[in-house]
């Protein structure tokens, strides 16, 4: 098995395990957030393996560097030491989980391989900032504008929401 495949499975395993750890850690929210960081970084690694270098960097920068830190910040700000909500209403959750498992299991034969052809070789410049920049600012320039508008709205909204009093 070539090294990139091995790395892929390692990262994938890390991602899944830490994601499970995040979801199942009912005692410590900070630990859950740290698990999420591991997931994000692993996903970033998988992006690198899939030749999406710039996106990988941004993934770690934005998710790892900003979003999860924000979560941690909020946890600390609210000083939520432990997360000990009583596990009520598990019935629904079991039902939903069961449904999901049914779907995923029924999809497993397709997910094992053979549906799609092999991944082809990537052309030069694939995943680099140059190609991505060209795509962003030519074909998708309207999308960029819209998303930037959304971001602006979110900034203003977050400020208003988190402000103690509007004076």
């Amino acid at each position, binding site marked *: 098995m070539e090294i990139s495949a091995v790395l892929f499975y390692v990262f994938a395993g890390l991602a899944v395990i830490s994601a499970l750890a995040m979801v199942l850690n009912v005692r410590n929210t900070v630990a859950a957030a740290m698990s999420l960081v591991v997931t994000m970084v692993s996903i970033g690694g998988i992006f690198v393996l899939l030749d999406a270098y710039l996106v990988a960097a941004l993934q770690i920068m934005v998710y790892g560097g900003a979003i999860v830190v924000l979560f941690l910040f909020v946890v600390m700000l609210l000083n939520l030491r432990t997360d000990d909500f009583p596990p009520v209403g598990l019935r629904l959750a079991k039902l*939903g989980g069961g449904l999901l498992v049914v*779907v995923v299991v029924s999809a497993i034969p*397709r997910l094992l391989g053979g549906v799609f052809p092999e991944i082809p070789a990537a052309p030069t410049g694939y995943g680099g900032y140059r190609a991505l920049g060209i795509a962003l600012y030519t074909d998708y320039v309207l999308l960029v504008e819209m998303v930037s508008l959304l971001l602006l709205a979110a900034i203003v909204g977050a400020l208003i929401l988190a402000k103690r009093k509007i004076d």
Partner: protein
Amino acid sequence: MVNGATEESVLRLIPLLPLAAAAYHGVMLGLVRRPTPRTVTIAISCGAVLASFVASCVAFWSLIQHPNGSHLLVDNVFSWIGSGVGVHAFSADVAFLLDPLSSVMTLVITGVGSLIHIYSVAYMDDDQRDDKGFQRFFCYLNLFTFSMLILVLADNLVLMFLGWEGVGLCSFLLIGFWYSDEWNAYCGSKAFIVNRIGDFGFLLGLFLLFSSLVDVGKPAVEFQDIERNLALITEATLAVPEWLGGGEWLLVNVIALCFFVGAVGKSAQLPLYVWLPDAMAGPTPVSALIHAATMVTAGVYLVCRMGFLFAVAPFASMVVAWTGALTAVFAAVIAIAQTDIKKVLAYSTVSQLGYMFLAAGCGGYTAAVFHVASHAFFKALLFLGAGSVILALHHEQNLENMGGLWRRTPRTHVVFLIGVLTIAGFPGLSGFFSKDEILVAAFASEIPGHTWLYGIGLATSGLTAFYMFRLHFLTFYGESRASADIREHIDEPGKLIIYPLYVLAFFAIFFGYAGLPQVWGDLVFGVDNSNSLANFLMPTLAVVPHNQLDHTTEVWLAAAAITAGVVGFGFAWFFYMMRPQLPERIAAALRIPHQLLVRKFYVDEAYDLLFVRPLVAISDRVLFRVIDVAVIDGLAVGGIARLVRATGTNLLRHAQSGFAQTYIFFMIAGAVAIVWILLR
């Protein structure tokens, strides 16, 4: 995409200038809500129309100077509507076409329009005391000018329809301009609704034409393309349903008839003429501009513009000719007994329009256009003169309260007399030549019964002379029948009223020499190619085969027309100058026929009984009370609301538990179901 400015670009200025003025007025009235001072309103409105007239002259000049002699200018402003590809492609551009036909129309519209705008300044100044109404009037008038120019300049049927609807709208707005009087509002609505019938015909014709062109793979709405591709569908036929008698009709006949329905509505022909006399409820300049000079000729313009279609549709042409002839005589007969000065002129307009359709139906498109132009001049002159009289008499319109005005309003009297002489066909004036052309065309045509058509036309000519001179005598001669206090204050209106009349009178006299029939050119003036208007129009108008007449016949025909006119004049002189008491006695003796005439053959009443009342009854009893109130409001709208409320309060309320995760669960369950179906 706006194309670069070229020689043709002046075309877009012609309609856009009035539009800009109208838009300015509209914004000031509707959004700013602060009326502009009168002087500014006048400057903008009249300035826009005058500038438009100048632009028309420039365009006309460059049309005659056009190097390759194609007599065609097309200004493609931008792509307006476009859909489909290939044989289903439909594209209508905002494109303006200036060919001889539309150039003549444009010049008439902007020229006469300018004069009437100037006239309106004085007329409306006297009338409306607040600036808002004043500006509103000019807003509508400019909008009308714009629509009318769009109508004549459009290079495709769709854009033309825009103008067609626009002029209808403006007509409605202006007839009901003094909407506080309910009768005026009623007249406006009547004009609008009757016009809808015609518009429906126009639309049907447009759709039918387009779809049949699609069937042969050459879809087009541009006039030139239609003309080019029309040969492909001239042989096509249309199965007629059983209840209409069955059989196969020529497709072009059906299309042409549909368009003619549109023309009938717009140009007030039988049986849809009823709105035009009532349209006289509007201000007099409006009657002059819209309901005499320009808008009502749109139908004639349409038939001439689509002449290539009517030329291959003989049956439709025959219908056009007969409708025109019958309308001409019918309206002329009604006009005899009318006592309202504007009503007489209105019926005269209907009658003259009938003449034009007679000419167009007989294939005399040049004659029709010639008469459109000369009629525009003399009828505008007559209406504006009537307006002057009305102003002088302080808004008195009834002929029975006039008389003897020639002393008090000498200048109005002179120009009005010129107008009357012109319409009556006094030799040498424009009306004589144009009417003569029409009669010649009718006489020379090959459609069945053309001799009858000629006879009706000739009789109408006599009737016209009779009722016009009656009008003139009753207005200007004899003893004044006005009430004493009015009699004291009869004054001739000011310069702004009179000068436009002079200009129009000049054209009414001399315009005929622009389209001098060849026979007079040869016999009297010794000029070759004297009919420059016809020569100018010839390349664009369709040619219908007709009998060639020699000069002798033509001179005899003219003599007959003159005779008819003289007879009409003689009767009028006899009845209203020599024996003024005679008409009343005749009326008393022939009560029933007279009443029939005064009541306009009870057409309005018949329509009311046949169409309006049943429709109103059905609308009220069935459509409103049963379908709207009971079914739609009660069952559909209210029922759904009740159903929703019932299910909500009794059933769905419990799903709203307030637990976000329950909601998320159902959302995910739905997503899972979809994924399951996709993966299955």
